[in-house]
């Protein structure tokens, strides 16, 4: 039973994100998507954003090799002193991000509005 073909698309700049970019993920994340995911991440990095946001809203399956790929991206982001932010995880994958402790090292939000709202709050703080 083949899963949905994976895509990772760098979105056109979102004004409210300021110095951040969003990668929209679609399908399932397993070992076979490494090149696609890394290429999208590389493209996102090219503009030297302070924050890269991964949208998991349309991701319906992540296996352990997929978790390893996300760990790889997180390591890369930390090395470059970038924030890696995610949103759109299902309740189940939120649990997995918690037990693997990925959630301790990245900002996790329920949806895109929450990511933007958080940035707005930060910039409007005195």
């Amino acid at each position, binding site marked *: *039973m*083949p*899963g949905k073909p994976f895509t990772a698309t760098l979105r056109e700049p979102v004004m409210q994100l300021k110095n951040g970019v969003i990668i929209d993920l679609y399908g*399932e994340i*397993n070992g*076979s998507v490494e090149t696609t995911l890394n290429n999208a991440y590389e493209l996102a990095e090219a503009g030297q954003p302070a924050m890269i946001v991964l949208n998991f809203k349309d991701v319906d*399956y992540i*296996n*352990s*090799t997929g*978790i*390893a*790929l996300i*760990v*790889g991206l*997180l*390591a890369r982001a*930390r090395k470059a002193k970038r924030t890696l932010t995610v949103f759109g995880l*299902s*309740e*189940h994958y939120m*649990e*997995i991000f918690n*037990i*693997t*402790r*990925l959630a*301790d*090292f990245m900002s996790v939000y329920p949806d895109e509005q929450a990511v933007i709202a958080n940035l707005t709050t930060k910039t409007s703080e005195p």
Partner: protein
Amino acid sequence: MYANAGHNAALQRTATGVVELRARGMPLGLMESMTYEEKVAFLEPEDTVFMYSDGLVEAHNAAREMFGMKRLERLIGEHAGGDSLIGFLRDELGSFTGEGWEQEDDVTFVVVQREAKRAAKSGDNDHQAHVLDEFEAPSRVGGERAVMERVAGVVSGVLPAAQIERLKTAVSEASMNAMEHGNHFRDDLPIKVRVEASDKKVSVFVTDSGGEQPIPEATTPDIEAKLEGTQSARGWGLFLIKAMVDDMRVHTSSSEHTIELILKRGGGTDAG
């Protein structure tokens, strides 16, 4: 002992299938002095008898298809039986008819289940476990996904949705390990999967042919080391399996490994 007065025949779910409990009889009160055939059915421990009104099998969906007996018998056969059968069938009826369904007739369910045999001694008593499914799956890259979906379908209605999600991840990881590390993705070596359910738990057994290699202990990965690059980013599989289920057991023979994944029914762990 049972009789029937023109009603739909009750269905008995046994360990080997579903049987109709048929007995002749006209609708009650139609004629005076009417006699009704009386028959006897024996219920084995954990057998379930399901009685229902015709509003269930005669319900139509938007395409005017009828729910029907075949569907009902299949669903009862797939379910582990017991009182959760009522909610399961109500959900299935809802999915079949879709939103905005105008109920055509009354829908009433009654379930009777014989108690499981009590354990002779304290401890696990799995003698009453039903095999819900048993199959082989080819050892190929990505093949774990089909195993995961099939097992999820089999336990639908047996476990709540959150437990099914956890089981899916555990089955997927166990199958992937079995296909890759146990069977080395060899076409001629399928993995074997068996799903069992008892009143207390659901067990999934995943067997590969790599008995000569020990399965390592599940350890907690060191994410700091992985992020610093001093440890491989991989190595989450066994940890995830163990975290997703209530118990994980490994059975090894000279030629095979079996990983048994156990989820307790009726409120296992909340967070794995």
